[in-house]
């Protein structure tokens, strides 16, 4: 029976579905993404603090968006990527896909928490309270619970294969629910509006503000890639510990 192959440019990309071949590839990618993230963050922060002007409505407080918005974007994007790899793992029964989903979760949860924290610190000076039951912030909070639930379920199940597949199913069910949750929370928010409080009323973007935000968004993206790749490498070492190549690798580092 022939192995499936996906040949692009003389390389069969399916070979990277094996933890053993993916491990060094990931290792090579981490420094590139790490340094790129650092450079983009430096550029983004420079633009954010030394190029973008003061907002006439919110003063200097608006500068929190250079962290808040990229973190929020990443929190949602990482969840989708996680659910994607979970789905691939369930469909094709590949270990590495599940390991990748597992590796993405903590970084996604961190981004979600950061979005919530910075959202609170932004809400206090602009709208007077530490927490604002804005539709998007509330959805972010529920997203955090979805991430934590995924991590808790995987931690509670000892047998790795069952943990992988149960977590994957949960991630998929969660991702189907995210739009439903978002819609219902938004509806709830508009029904209960007293004063029109909404973090969607962000400052009208000067081009420089937008540039700073995009630079930071890419910085967060590349950082998340680097962190997840590092984590998946460690997960591979943990779960493939019986394999000869892992023992060789560990011996080589001694």
């Amino acid at each position: 029976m022939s192995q499936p192959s996906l040949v692009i440019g003389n390389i069969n990309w399916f070979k990277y579905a094996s933890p053993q071949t993916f491990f060094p590839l990931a290792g090579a990618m981490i420094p590139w993404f790490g340094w790129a993230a650092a450079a983009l963050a430096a550029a983004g922060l420079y633009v954010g603090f030394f190029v973008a002007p003061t907002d006439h409505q919110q003063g200097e407080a608006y500068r929190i968006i250079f962290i808040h918005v990229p973190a929020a974007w990443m929190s949602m994007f990482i969840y989708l990527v996680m659910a994607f790899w979970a789905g691939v793992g369930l469909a094709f029964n590949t270990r590495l896909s599940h390991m990748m989903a597992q590796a993405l979760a903590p970084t996604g949860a961190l981004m979600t928490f950061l979005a919530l924290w910075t959202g609170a610190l932004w809400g206090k000076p602009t709208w007077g309270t530490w927490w604002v039951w804005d539709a998007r912030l509330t959805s972010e909070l529920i997203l955090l619970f979805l991430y934590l639930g995924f991590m808790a379920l995987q931690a509670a199940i000892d047998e790795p294969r069952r943990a992988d597949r149960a977590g994957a199913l949960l991630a998929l069910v969660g991702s189907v629910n995210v739009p439903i949750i978002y819609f219902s929370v938004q509806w709830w928010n508009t029904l209960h509006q007293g004063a029109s409080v909404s973090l969607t009323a962000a400052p009208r973007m000067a081009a420089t503000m937008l540039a700073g935000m995009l630079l930071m968004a890419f910085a967060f993206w590349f950082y998340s890639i680097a962190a997840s790749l590092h984590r998946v490498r460690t997960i591979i070492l943990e779960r493939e510990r019986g394999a000869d190549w892992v023992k060789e690798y560990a011996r080589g580092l001694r």
Partner: protein
Amino acid sequence: MSWGSLGEFLAMGGYALYVWGSYAVAAGLIVVEIAMLVARRRRALEGLGAGRAGAGSAP
């Protein structure tokens, strides 16, 4: 955007607590995540019997 002085920059128009609070927590969380990544890798390598050298190697 030109700040009059370092003092003005740090004060952030009176919003220092909120702005620097956000950036500090962001930086802190990233540092913590990186530390946890390194620690987890070290633990895994020790479990494989790689010894002290394994922990300091390139990722």
